């Protein structure tokens, strides 16, 4: 009996040490993935799984922001922008050993475009009425024809993970660097290295370098920080400036500032004609001079310095400079200029009396600024704006609301005066912002769901956005979208405040991590991330 127990203990020790030898990368997901089906991905956690496990025909290089070949070795878009032909990589197999070919691409596209599936990825490809036709032209050639031209078509394939047409494992058979081995709801998702992954490094070694990835599910940022500082997890994909500063003091080698992100913080005034606000206030909010005066009275440099500890840049418009191609470099810097603000206000009949600003009818200029409760950075930003606007006689009442109440007010009842929120940009392409700029859209926050554009400049925005979406030539699209940015800067329907920097945590144990501003910031090159040789020689 004792001998048997000794053998069991020995076996346990051997197994434990074998498990310890695995190069396992660990980081946190903020919530459980809602799906493992790549066609149905609609949340951050599921997107992470799709990125780590899914094989795509073309991949957007997050560093260069250029499209690169993956499972397709070559591609060609037709002149009319409706057809894309792919030459597929040969000899590739799914994680379960099933061979990859043109039939799998057709199967994936048919599934994505099936209206009954309601695939968010498929919706992005659905540009017009009619079907997407996939024509298999051999084992390794396929062409896809869309009912209408699709601008920036090849970029959309970055999110189309190919699913096997013949595997019994269905979407769990993958072509990406890892495959899912275990999922415990509320606890973790375990991924293991795909033995059939097709990529090799320059020296001919199979990629990925890591053996496994463990995605633990944890929504609490404090716990994430503590675990990271104890090296129990290896990556943090985005953190607040407060946390960054604290970690940079205690462990300077563990945090990195990857420069401006694609995200922006902005405020806007309610311009909805039917909103339950005083008509004279609606007049202020519809005045370009009023909006521009408020914008000029906000000290963005101080916001960057005080609220973000220097880890942000003053925003110039709807596109961050991190978006290398689409950012309009001709946009003027938003300067802090209270004198100019007062001049603009005077042009509209506003006047100062006893340090308070009055409009031409003698109404005290006072408005409420709503934002979401619990976001320290946003609350501090609002308090600084309150102080800045006080200097030109405007009284701002800050109201922090729980998120559902806030969304209900800004999207349904329109019972608010000014709001401040952030915009998370995932896509580089301007088509990702169609829902913001079209006057008929729900997300046209200052005045959504317009039957016809309320102003001439909104009509022009509609025209330009539609023109760029149907143009095939990138230069024509760029010209149109530059004009959109210029109009937005002139009219200030959104008062852009800052572009936050991408602040990440990277364990010094890791090699090959190159943080970038686009998502996923730290593990976009997951195949080439590995543990440092020092750790490996120490028995990990």
């Amino acid at each position: 009996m004792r001998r048997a127990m000794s053998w069991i203990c020995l076996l346990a020790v051997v197994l434990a040490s074998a498990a310890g030898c695995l190069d396992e990368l660990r980081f946190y997901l903020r919530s459980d993935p809602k799906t493992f089906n790549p066609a149905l991905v609609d949340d951050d956690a599921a997107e992470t799984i799709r990125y780590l496990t899914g094989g795509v025909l073309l991949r957007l290089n997050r560093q260069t922001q250029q499209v690169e070949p993956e499972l397709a070795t070559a591609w060609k878009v037709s002149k009319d922008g409706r057809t894309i032909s792919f030459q597929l990589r040969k000899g590739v197999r799914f994680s379960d050993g099933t061979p990859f070919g043109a039939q799998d691409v057709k199967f994936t596209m048919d599934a994505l475009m099936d209206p009954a599936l309601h695939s968010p990825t498929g919706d992005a490809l659905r540009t017009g009425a009619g079907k997407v036709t996939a024509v298999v032209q051999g084992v390794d050639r396929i062409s896809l024809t869309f009912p209408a031209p699709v601008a920036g078509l090849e970029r959309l394939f970055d999110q189309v993970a190919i699913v096997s047409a013949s595997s019994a494992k269905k979407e769990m058979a993958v072509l990406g660097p890892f495959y899912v081995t275990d999922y415990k709801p509320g606890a973790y998702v375990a991924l293991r290295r795909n033995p059939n992954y097709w990529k090799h490094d320059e020296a001919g070694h199979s990629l990925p370098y890591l053996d496994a990835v463990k995605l633990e599910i944890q929504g609490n940022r404090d716990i994430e920080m503590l675990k990271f500082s104890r090296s129990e997890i290896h990556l943090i994909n985005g953190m607040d400036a407060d946390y960054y500063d604290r970690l940079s003091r205690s462990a300077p080698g563990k945090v990195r500032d990857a420069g401006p992100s694609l995200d922006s913080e902005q405020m806007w005034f309610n311009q909805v004609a039917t909103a339950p606000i005083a008509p004279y206030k609606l007049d202020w909010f519809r005045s370009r001079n009023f909006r521009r005066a408020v914008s000029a009275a906000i000290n963005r440099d101080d916001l960057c310095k005080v609220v973000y500890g220097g880890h942000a840049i003053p925003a110039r418009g709807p596109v961050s400079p991190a978006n290398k191609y689409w950012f309009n470099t001709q946009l003027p810097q938003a300067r802090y200029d209270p004198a100019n603000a007062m001049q603009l206000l005077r042009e509209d009949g506003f006047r100062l009396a006893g340090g308070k600003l009055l409009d031409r009818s003698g109404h005290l200029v006072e408005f409420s600024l709503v934002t979401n409760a619990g976001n320290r950075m946003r609350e501090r930003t609002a308090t600084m704006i309150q102080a800045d606007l006080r200097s030109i006689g405007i009284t701002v009442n800050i109201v922090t609301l729980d998120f559902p109440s806030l969304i209900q007010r800004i999207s349904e009842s329109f019972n608010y005066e000014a709001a401040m929120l952030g915009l998370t940009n995932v896509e580089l392409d301007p088509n990702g912002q169609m829902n913001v700029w079209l006057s008929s859209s729900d997300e046209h926050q200052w005045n959504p769901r317009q039957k016809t554009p309320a102003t001439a400049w909104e009509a022009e925005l509609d025209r330009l956005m539609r023109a760029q979406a149907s143009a095939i030539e990138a230069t024509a699209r760029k010209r149109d979208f530059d004009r959109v940015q210029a109009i937005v800067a002139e009219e200030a329907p959104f008062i852009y405040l800052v572009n936050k920097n991408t602040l990440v945590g990277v364990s010094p144990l890791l090699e090959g991590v190159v943080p970038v501003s686009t998502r996923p910031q730290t593990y976009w090159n997951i195949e080439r991330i590995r543990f440092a040789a020092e750790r490996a020689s120490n028995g990990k």
Partner: protein
Amino acid sequence: MRTARTIGLMLASLIALASFGGSLLQRFDYSRQDREQVSAGPSQEHWLGTDALGRDRLARLLHGTRVSLTLAPAAAGIALLLAFLAGATPGFVGGASERVAKIAIDLMLSVPWLFLLLMVRAMLPLNTSPAASAAITFLMLGLLGWGMPARILMARAQRLRRSEFVVLARASGVSRWRLLCIHVMPNLRPVLLAQFWIAVPVFILAEANLSLLGLGVAEPLPSLGSLLQELETVLSFRGDACSFAALLVMMLMVGSLQIAFMKHEVS
């Protein structure tokens, strides 16, 4: 015991005097942002340093203590008045009123008050000044916080109703009103006072929690609750002793008041 009470009373008076007097001084502007000295340590200019927006921490502490010292006891007073009416009075009277009151108290305790507060705040006009928002917050706390003290007061009143001296007084023909005023009220006072001093810090902390949900005192007006938010998470405070000043003041204030009024409770 007397010495302890004197010290308690002096300390409480000192805090009240400092907060009410200091907050009136021009030097202590709680909203001025010194953006060149953000999160700074103690200095000649800022004795307790500055917060994350460069505001003088001492000025905010003085004003915040004044706001909380004024409004939290007021809210506790409202809650206890309601608790007395809904708990002690029916508990003493008995009968149908007692049964109805019990149901009302149980209902009040079972209401998810946080959601109720969220709902009430969502219905309030957005353009309220910070001072009005502070008053509304504490008023709501007072109006919704009477359930637990009412249950305790009811139990005490029931016990008094069945006590020998009350039975004797009633048998002697003492009117119910006179019984309540002369015999019951003095006996309820220790419980009332205890509940009052329990309610004050509870309301201050409740206001801090509400601030996280957007229901607290609006910026830039400080309160002890909003100042305690600096200690919100393990990682959010910078670890300097001054960030604990609000907590220290609250503990000293509540502790000294408890000691100062101990005599009444034991009598």
